[in-house]
């Protein structure tokens, strides 16, 4: 067999219809479909590096600008750092979130996905995991810069990372739902923030409070744990509601 890129276009009369077999989707198949959506989104992002670079840069710039305003001799107050971290994550996350779904809109590939035998729940999960990955990559750039510039000491990295993870999950769960719903709207960039922020307010404020508790001297780890549990409860609620409503919302064009 000749290498793929050495063969020439075929003559129409020689064409035969290639046959194929299909497996039933099932539960394992649905997980495989979720994985395929995540891999596809990751490959597309790897090729363009658009979201991680631009959103990471935006996040770092915001941290640097805030550091000029708030860092004094001897550091800054924990309340400021906790709040700033979550403001930066939410604003930069919104830009990335919009872009993930804009890609599906530009060549209308969302229609191809919606037309495929993929449950809406699996499609939602695939997009959500992709958004989570991009946001966490961005956080891996932004958070060390914030720690460095604001000279903060984090007492319990386990709880801090858990706050970041579950906070990001809550934001991505709601954000992915609205970003998908608004894909065909002309005002989607504005509406995405307007619709998402009020709903994720409990997660963001709990994240800020929990982060602040960890930065206190002495650190309030038990207090941070309470905020973490609150975030996890909201995450569960958001995930269930979003999976339930994703199908009808993206299909009602």
């Amino acid at each position, binding site marked *: 067999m000749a290498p793929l890129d050495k063969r020439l276009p075929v003559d129409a009369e020689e*064409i035969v*219809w290639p046959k194929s077999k*299909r497996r039933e989707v099932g539960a394992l198949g649905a997980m*495989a479909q979720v994985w395929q959506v995540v891999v596809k989104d990751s490959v597309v992002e790897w090729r363009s590096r658009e979201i991680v670079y631009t959103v990471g840069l935006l996040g770092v710039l915001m941290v640097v600008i805030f550091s000029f305003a708030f860092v004094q001799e001897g550091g800054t107050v924990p309340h400021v750092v906790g709040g700033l971290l979550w403001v930066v994550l939410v604003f930069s996350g919104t830009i990335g979130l919009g872009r993930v779904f804009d890609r599906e809109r530009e060549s209308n590939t969302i229609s*191809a996905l919606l037309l495929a*035998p993929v449950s809406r729940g699996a499609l939602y999960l695939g997009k959500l995991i992709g958004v989570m990955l991009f946001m966490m990559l961005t956080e891996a750039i932004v958070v060390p810069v914030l720690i460095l510039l604001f000279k903060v000491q984090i007492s319990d990295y386990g709880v801090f990372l858990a706050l970041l993870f579950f906070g990001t999950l809550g934001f991505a769960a709601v954000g992915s739902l609205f970003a998908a719903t608004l894909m065909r709207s002309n005002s989607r960039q504005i509406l995405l923030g307007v619709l998402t922020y009020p709903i994720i307010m409990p997660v963001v404020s709990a994240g800020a409070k929990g982060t602040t508790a960890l930065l206190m001297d002495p650190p309030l780890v038990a207090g941070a744990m309470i905020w973490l549990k609150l975030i996890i409860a909201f995450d569960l609620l958001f995930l269930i509601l979003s999976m339930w409503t994703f199908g009808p919302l993206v*299909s009602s*064009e």
Partner: protein
Amino acid sequence: MSDFSRVKIEQIRRAFGRQPVLAGIDAELRSGELTVLMGPNGAGKSTLFGLLSTLSRPTSGRILYGNRDHRYAAIHLRHRIGLLSHGLLLYGELTCLENLIFFAKIYRMEDPLGVASQWLEAVGMTYAAHRPVRELSRGMGQRVALARALMPDPKLLLLDEPFTGLDQAATGLLRRFLSLARDSNKIVVVVTHDVEAVSGLVDRLLILDRGHIALDQAVDRPPATQLLEHYRGTVG
């Protein structure tokens, strides 16, 4: 069982706000028939395609795929519906081969690489297998999009202006696939105004005008001139 031998459109109405686009239409699409759907701009052709593909829902009425109502069985029907629309529905950053492999996997097809390679060969795009779709011309992209639409072996094949941007060779290729699809008992519906391109292929002519069916007539694979006469005689 998700197979079906006909698609029955029953009193389908679709409105956007207060503006009705389809005003209660009835039609039947049958296996082994190639139906050409024609109509002036705004007649409701794309809206009807959206409904037939299960991508959107009617305001009222129902579509039966065999005996299955699309409102309750869409997920079981989707792998039997192939859509080629205005957009390519392909990822620009992925290569032609990667796009087809992705869709083969999403459709849970066995041997995704083998199937994708066979389809690239079938549409004459093997030589561009490793080129990103964003670098392709419109006609080349349309060939890959055709492979994406046909690859899951759909029972109902919906093609919206499929000849746009195709050169003579690619038009011949598409005509060949339309013949093969009809001969293998698929239900083929083509929206086109390029009557030359479908000359000698059409079994049924469906003309929409302002949301109503103005003509639904079986024809005997007429030449382009006759198709044009039917159209002009119906909508002027």
